[in-house]
């Protein structure tokens, strides 16, 4: 299983949705709240070149955008890592 990091901000529906998706598929992940944390923002930007949460980092792959956009890609990545 590759390492999974999820960058979130509080009260963000899309972030919650990604969290639930990962939990649901039994994928362990580290969550980082980037609001008011310039270091975490910088890290997120370095890894995904994005400043807007949620950003899902699965191994080398980074996904961003609204939940609907991320969902199929996250699932593909999770599935790929299981094979």
């Amino acid at each position: 299983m590759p390492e999974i990091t999820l960058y979130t901000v509080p009260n963000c529906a899309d972030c919650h949705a990604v969290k639930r998706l990962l939990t649901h598929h039994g994928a362990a992940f580290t969550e980082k709240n980037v609001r008011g944390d310039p270091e975490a923002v910088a890290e997120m930007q370095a890894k995904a070149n994005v400043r807007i949460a949620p950003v899902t980092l699965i191994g080398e792959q980074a996904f961003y955008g609204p939940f609907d956009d991320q969902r199929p890609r996250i699932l593909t990545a999770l599935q790929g890592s299981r094979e």
Partner: protein
Amino acid sequence: MSAPRSRLEYFVDGMDCASCVQKVERMIATLPGAEEVRTSFNKQTLRLDLDETQTERATLERNLQALGYTPSLLNPPTAPMSEAAPKDHAHGEHGHVHEAPTPGQPWYATGQGKLVVTSGVLLALAWLFGFIEPQFATWGFVAATLLGVWPLAKKAVASARFGDYFSINTLVSLAAVGAVLIGEAAEGAVVVFFFAVGELLEGIAAGRARAGIQALAALVPKTALLVEGQGTREVPADSLAVGQTVQVNPGGRVPADGTILSGTSNLDDSPVTGESVPVVKSAGNTVYAGSINTDGVLTVRVDKAASDNTIARIIHLVEEAEGSKAPTARFIDRFSRYYTPGVVAVSALVALVPPLLFGGVWHEWLYKGIALLLIGCPCALVLSVPAAITSGISAGTRRGLLIKGGAALESIGSVKTVAFDKTGTLTAGKPRVTDVVGQDRNEVLRLAAAVESGSSHPLAKAITDAAKGSHLTLPAAENAQALPGKAVTATVEGRTLSVSSPRHAATLTTLPADLSATIEAFEKQGRTAVVLLDGPTPLGVIAIRDEPRPDAREAVAQLRGLGVQTVMLTGDNARTGQAIASDLGMDVRAELLPEDKLRLIADLKAKGGVAMVGDGINDAPALAQSDVGIAMGGGTDVALETADAALLRERVTGVADLVGLSRATMQNIKVNIAFALGLKAIFLVTTLLGYTNLWMAILADTGATAIVTANALRLLRWKGSGPAAPRTVTAAPTPSRA
């Protein structure tokens, strides 16, 4: 002549989540003169071409600040260029492959079925040989026992490796092997045979529940009419790609989740929502794969590939849900963890102590010890709970109640309070103008609608819809500006008009007493009032009301009947909230900010369980905070993902149904547990005292397993309060079985 435009690019501090981006985009959409709007996820920036004669830059910046974001201009304004970096929206990859639902095999073709048949045949042969050649009979029983024990022993070893040394499989394996060792192979063979039968029954029960759900998949047509140029071509529905256009003829089924491009028709969405009443849909509406198009011809843009459509996802979620354990199931596991070693220990004592210490006969006491092992086996208990949970989840899904897991199913029935979000949940989220007060009704409506014509806010839409309904011709509005939550102003026919909230209007001018009274009266009736001002002069008041859903009142009453408190959470003003809540007969907490909602949910949680019902998109944090989050939303992604349960047909009474279903399931489980344990206790005592023999105890346990499984299957017939959708299609591959 084209207006002077400037290209602006802002870094927007605080716009740091995907939903924030959408909020900003929606706000910009209400500004006249804003075009080519691009938000960048990479840079957290907003870029747009703004016609500053229509909307001033200051207005844009003020609006952003009102939403809680701080814009800082990155570039000196330049004339717009034609290129624009497109947002990455490529949707090509769709890796989420669902296993094709295996059509129901006959029970004897499954692994478990083969085991039952083989050990049954061996058992019967051995028994027959008992009359002809007794020594062969013993070998037959030994063979039947070993065959039946083999898979159990493998499972026992596997669970022992994970630290669970005393699983039910260990118990049965020990008992059967012990029986063979003391020369009672016949009993050992019968025990493993009946245990296998019990497991087979449980498998059949789960399979039956699942077959009902998978029948949904059969409702999606196999082929689709792909629109190509002027004509159409029939292609397999599986091969449809996102972005393609398909045609759906009257009477046909929609082949994929998508958006209607042209045409209007009644659609029967019952496969997805369980709702059998057709819904009228036209261009721009979304349709689900499997829905029946009852009349008009539709062209539909495919939004999701076959493997990812709503039905496929529901089936997948339900299958996963069935695998997740309810707290009661976990309780049974915990119980077994103490119970099973206890049984083993007592059996060992019974078998060893009398012969060792008191000179008992070895064979007699070993037999008694093994008898204890066999009687102690909690088969019925262990098998009944998953069967009931599976049946309960399936029964719900067929009625448009999607429950994601045993834990959710169990906790819904025990919540003390159900908290409802107001807009979009208790109300339909489609406000309508109810009253217009002023010297000339139509004039007030005409001018207010002109001011609001550029806005997509629900209240603005209510006003423009009302003007359209009265066949009014709207004059052009210029210099439209929005102050979110306060007012919209514009120049119409040379007058500076504004449509404002009463509180904002009061800061601009003094409202006459009679007008203030009217406004207060409207708000007490649960309506939202807005004031039309011409400069400082009030021209009239428009009352708008977001009507409660037709079944909201009934739902609240039903919940009260079930002994569940209800409370409405709203950000609306206290008077309006109070009026709607008292109309529905429930408590209300009004003027709440999102974080207030979270705090309230936490408070309610401390006072016993709380379920939160929301429309799923903006309520995700509150849904997550509650014990059970219930999303109101016909199959939207965020709703399906964030909530523990979703009401696929948008009916508030579904909440009461969920509570009812949960209680019915738990009741079923309790009856099963009591029955299984009670029977066990009776036979334990009577067998040890010698009134009944081991055979009867074994038969009793098997009988109990069959009865609790049958009892669990009764849940499949659970009706709820609403009518179930008639399932017209019988393509369901149901396993053939006794």
